[in-house]
């Protein structure tokens, strides 16, 4: 978290095949602000957030409703762009990108896990997991193989042909996790992933995140549950659009 190795070459074009240099942090935010305007009303959702997340970190973002953690997540996931400030994702300045470039970045650099699972009901688990690969232009045979591997990794190798409606909540969220990791992204971004799950399923899904972390993935998890945050290696607390504290996990991973 040195923040000193900021890329100087921030005009470089996005290149899917570029090897991510390990010396870059995965995420580098510099005084990021976000203001939403609804009519004449301006809401400052982020008021100058600076944050650096290194490769292989497991970071939890905590904060009450309206603290700006969802806005932060949208900006981290390139679903939205900052009003001001700069954001480097895996060494690339994403602040200046257009809609199509952002789509490519989301496709290749970020894996999303949502509170609502967001699986397509008409598709089987396997087809859902294949979806980001389809947008990446991966051919069908390779797509099937990668989707199978990702589903096996989350323990659903035997549920390939099930549709979301035929799976439990925990299983659906594990399909979503498989979809997030199938493109081998630089960053896995989870927004309240256990918010809609019972305690057994929550444990299931968090187990998967632990394993991902253990295998060297970078995970950012947004939650308001203390014990969920407790599994992370670092916790960032937000309040009123600002980071109010950063601490290494005090609870201990398996308390």
């Amino acid at each position, binding site marked *: 978290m040195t923040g000193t190795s900021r890329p100087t070459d921030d005009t470089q074009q996005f290149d899917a095949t570029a090897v991510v240099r390990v010396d870059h942090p995965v995420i580098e935010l510099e005084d990021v602000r976000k203001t939403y305007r609804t009519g004449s009303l301006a809401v400052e959702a982020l008021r100058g957030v600076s944050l650096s997340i290194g490769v292989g970190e497991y970071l939890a973002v905590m904060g009450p409703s309206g603290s700006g953690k969802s806005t932060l997540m*949208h900006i981290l*996931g390139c*679903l*939205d762009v900052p009003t001001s400030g700069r954001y480097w994702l895996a060494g690339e300045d994403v602040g200046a990108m257009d*809609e*199509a470039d952002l*789509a*490519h970045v*989301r*496709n*290749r650099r970020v894996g*999303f896990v*949502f509170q609502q699972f*967001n699986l*397509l009901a*008409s*598709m089987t688990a396997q087809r859902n997991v294949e*979806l*980001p690969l*389809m*947008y*990446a*232009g991966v051919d069908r045979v390779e797509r099937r193989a990668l989707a199978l591997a990702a589903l096996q990794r989350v323990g659903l190798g035997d549920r390939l042909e099930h549709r979301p409606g035929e799976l439990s909540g925990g299983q659906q969220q594990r399909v979503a996790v498989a*979809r997030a990791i199938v493109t081998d992204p630089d960053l896995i971004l989870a927004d309240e992933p256990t918010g809609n799950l019972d305690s057994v399923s929550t444990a299931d899904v968090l187990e998967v995140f632990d394993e991902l972390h253990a295998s060297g993935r970078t995970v950012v998890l947004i939650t308001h549950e203390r014990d969920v945050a407790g599994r992370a290696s670092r916790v960032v607390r937000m309040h009123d659009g600002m980071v109010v504290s950063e601490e290494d996990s005090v609870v201990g991973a398996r308390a």
Partner: protein
Amino acid sequence: MNALETLRTGLEAIRTHRLRSGLTVLGILIGIAAVILTVGLGEGAQAKVSSEISSLGTNLLTVSPGSSTSSSGIRGGFGSASTLTIQDADALESKTVAPAIAAVAPTTQSSEVLTAGNSNWTTTVVGSEADWLQVRARTVTEGRFLDSQDVADHADVVVLAPTTAEELFGFEDPVGQTVNIAGVPMTVIGELDSVGSGSSSSSTTDEDDEAIVPITTAAQQLFGGTSRDSVQSILIEATSSTTLTAAYQETEDELLVMHHITTPADADFTISTQQQLLSTATSVDKTLTVLLAGIAAISLLVGGIGVMNIMLVSVTERVREIGLRKALGATPVLIRRQFLVESSILGLSGGVLGAALGAVGTQVLPSLVSQPMSLSVAATVGAIVIAMAVGLGFGVYPASRAARLAPIDALRNE
């Protein structure tokens, strides 16, 4: 994401909403079937009319009286009917005046009751001359036709068409028998051939049911009228189809002289060719076809609006899905393409099914409505292309809306 996958995604979306997609397709289907059926009906009618008219002969001219609207604006049909006379016809028969004219037949006609013994029959009595047979391209199967002597003598003779003969005399030979026409006893001298136009719907007279008498006899003894020399029309046959224009010119020049008219625009007669008749008849049918096709086009437009409506509903309903796809890496271009493919598929399936229904219709309908119909390949292919274009065109706006959705707004939607 390649074209095949875009297509597959579109098909999946359509399959997911079967009923809705089916109803949308139905809208297009009806529009396309209507287009094909109306075009088929119009073309069938045109083909029928032109075959009927060309069977009458192509080197025929018809002179009718009372062409131009008079300067006073109002002119009765009766007055105008007397502008042509037997003398006009006689003048045209001169080979020096009109070398391009092969035959001239002045005609008058009226509906009369014919009686023979206990039978009576109402039919069209035509007064004409010997050339009538040649001009109308008819032949006599029994006896003989009128000759110039009959005309000169105001002879009380008649030639019957086959249906008329049968109605009056059954299967007896009519030649030599006597028929009363308007109280005047006439001797049957011949019977015409049959042209088999019994079921004709567009001809005003049945050519197998008429009686031909000398025009002089008709004028003096049968029809009466103010001017005994006036005729209702003069039929003229040119020497060949290549001299038709010359015959037209000679007729016009001679009649202008006869009527003491200096400018052709003031002519009190009209000369029409079979070609003109044909084009008039077909243009009437064309107008009808355009009208029907216009109605069909409107129904297609309504179908297109249906597609747009459904696609807009689909976009609104699938806001979350669109947001998710965008979060997973779909670019606006891909989203737009996906929705365009979906609406094109709806349009295309409507087009293909509509064309199939139209094709079946052109086979089945003629026997039900007794109207000829022809299936035009060009119209069918065109209709399918139009249907797809309608789907595509009316899909542009909904697809653009989908593409413009911001991913966070889309995902936030509950």
